[in-house]
């Protein structure tokens, strides 16, 4: 095979590969689709907001972000908004993922490092949980005797709790490396009262309880704050 033919074959492979990558990216601004192996909906609507960011970086950010976000089991994101703020070579990203089946969105904060083209997750609040799962988690949390006592003694019954997804890497520190749900009641005021139950949605049981009224003393023993 001649050198020209080799070059032509390589060029053809590069073009096909580039086309494949391009087509594997989501639509709207790009007219692209998400990767088929993700749990993301093929018809997901991705919107990108950000000034002074070139198309190549945009495409790279979108691709990296979509690879990093995963909805709750059985949930599909219908809309993903990516807001980018340029910070020198890097970009701070706020990613809000909406699902038609959920009342609340999943919100992620990332930093995209321009030099290394690396995406780093900074923080997240994941509340895109189907209403029935949400209700079940609250019901399970209320059944925890410790939590029920704390709620009753601190008049938290009338407070609507938040239900948030806890990712396996965090859950491992408190129970097992699996997706858990955090059901949290917060009563604001001069002395806020917070009671949270970590719920295993598969087992339907509370696996850990935390309250800001319980403080660790020097001996490591838990005691109640005397508020």
């Amino acid at each position, binding site marked *: 095979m001649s050198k020209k033919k080799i070059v032509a074959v390589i060029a053809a492979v590069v073009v096909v590969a580039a086309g494949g990558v391009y087509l594997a990216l989501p639509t709207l601004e790009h007219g692209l689709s998400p990767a088929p192996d993700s749990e993301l909906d093929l018809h997901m609507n991705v919107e990108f907001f950000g000034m002074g960011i070139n198309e190549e970086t945009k495409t790279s950010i979108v691709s990296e972000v979509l690879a990093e976000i995963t909805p709750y089991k059985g949930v599909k994101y219908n809309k993903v908004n990516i807001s980018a703020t340029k910070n020198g070579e890097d970009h701070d990203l706020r990613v809000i993922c909406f699902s038609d089946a959920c*009342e*609340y*969105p999943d*919100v992620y*904060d990332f930093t995209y490092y321009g030099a290394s083209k690396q995406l780093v997750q*900074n*923080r*997240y*609040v994941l*509340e895109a949980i189907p209403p*029935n799962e949400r*209700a*079940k988690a*609250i*019901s*399970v949390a*209320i*059944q925890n005797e410790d939590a*029920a006592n704390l709620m*009753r003694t601190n008049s938290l*019954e*009338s*407070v*609507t709790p*938040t239900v*948030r997804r*806890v*990712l396996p890497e*965090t*859950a491992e*520190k*408190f129970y097992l490396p699996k997706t*858990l749900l*955090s059901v*949290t009641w*917060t*009563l*604001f*005021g001069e002395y*806020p009262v*917070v009671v*949270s139950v*970590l719920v295993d949605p598969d*087992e*339907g*049981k509370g696996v*850990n309880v*935390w309250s*800001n009224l319980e403080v660790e003393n020097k001996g490591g023993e838990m005691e109640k704050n005397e508020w």
Partner: protein
Amino acid sequence: MKKEEAKIEAKALVVLMAFLLGVFSVAAVAGQVAPPQPVLNLGAVVVGLEAGVAGHASPPTQPAPEVVSEQSEEEQQMDYKILQISPKHEWFELKPGGEKEFTVKVKNKDEEAVSTSPRIEVQPYGEYFLEEEWITVEPGSADINADGEQEYTVTVKIPEDAEIGHYSAQIVFTNDTMPTPYPAPFPMYVNSLSLSIQVWEPPKIVVQPQYIHDRVKAGQSHEYEIQFENKGDKAIAISPEIGGEERWHGPFENTIPEGWLTIDAPAKVEANSKATVKVTVNVPIDAKGRYESGINLNIDDPSIERWNQEVHIGLEVWKQPTTPFREGFAVKQGDKFSVVVTAGQHAYDRYGGGAEEKEEPSFDVTLTTPEGGKLTSEPSKTVKKGEVSLGMDYLPPWEASSEGMYHAMSTEYSETYEITNATGGAWTLDILPRNAERFEYTIEIGE
């Protein structure tokens, strides 16, 4: 003469005997009527009490034979072996059909070998009793040498048809029992492990909400829905009725009279389906204050704890004030003054991008001049002030990943009214708040 002498001798002998008899009689009588010695008597009572407590009537100085006998029995009872058993108590949860294995370490700290043959003892108290055949302990027997240690493997298998509830039993390693000063109804085994198992299963039915809290207006009707979802394969009967205070302990300021509540519920929730129970509350026109009640759902699902069978209803009957708050103040002729009225609103339900948006507070403010003229002008300035947390101070440890996200904590609304070149004299400020539980005002006179 000899006869007379003999008579005299006989008389003397009789007199002597009579004298001796008299002396002995007096002595005997005197001994019988001798006055009681109080100290001795008290001592006798005390001794008697002590003996009674000990179960014996003999004074301690002269112990009765049976005391000696019981002491030796006690000494015999004290002569038991004490093994170091770890854990001494074991508690866990299992579902029907579930199985769990754990290890028990038994150390013999004595100088002699001890024979152990673990067995299950079920004491007749507790909610449910663990059946012997549910528990196996391996090895079935072992001799533990002095300072030796033996590990046992305990396997608990809960049958599929076991009832939901709290089960207990003891795993007894030796027959040694704790001596008790009184007869014990059941032997207290010294070398035993207490086993408690909560047999549970996830509720097949989900109820939401379990708390209805609302601020309602007197004279109005309000309808609430309780959603049921049966995730099981069989229909589950429900029979909601007013009552049930297992979980929500009173006393309450007011209990919602039964006549206010109407419950519209299906008789059952079909398998793998949802159902709605409607609760209608008719609040009479003369109601005021806080009212509480409960609805016992009577769900025929043993996996639901008793206190989760209830939905609590808390209603605050709110009457919008119609008479304004009034405050007087004095200004000098030509002064400039301002009135700032502020009301705060904590995030509560709005926390975390929450569901229910509350109506924003507002105020009807009227200023009355010294001449009696009423000024009801629009505020010259309105301010909305918010407090936002980054979650550092109140998030549970498993939500630490959301630190740095913004969480709206509270919002404050204020309205400013300004008067320039005021008429000197006594002014009156009237404030009628709307959608506010409390408010603050500031009257600032002068530049």
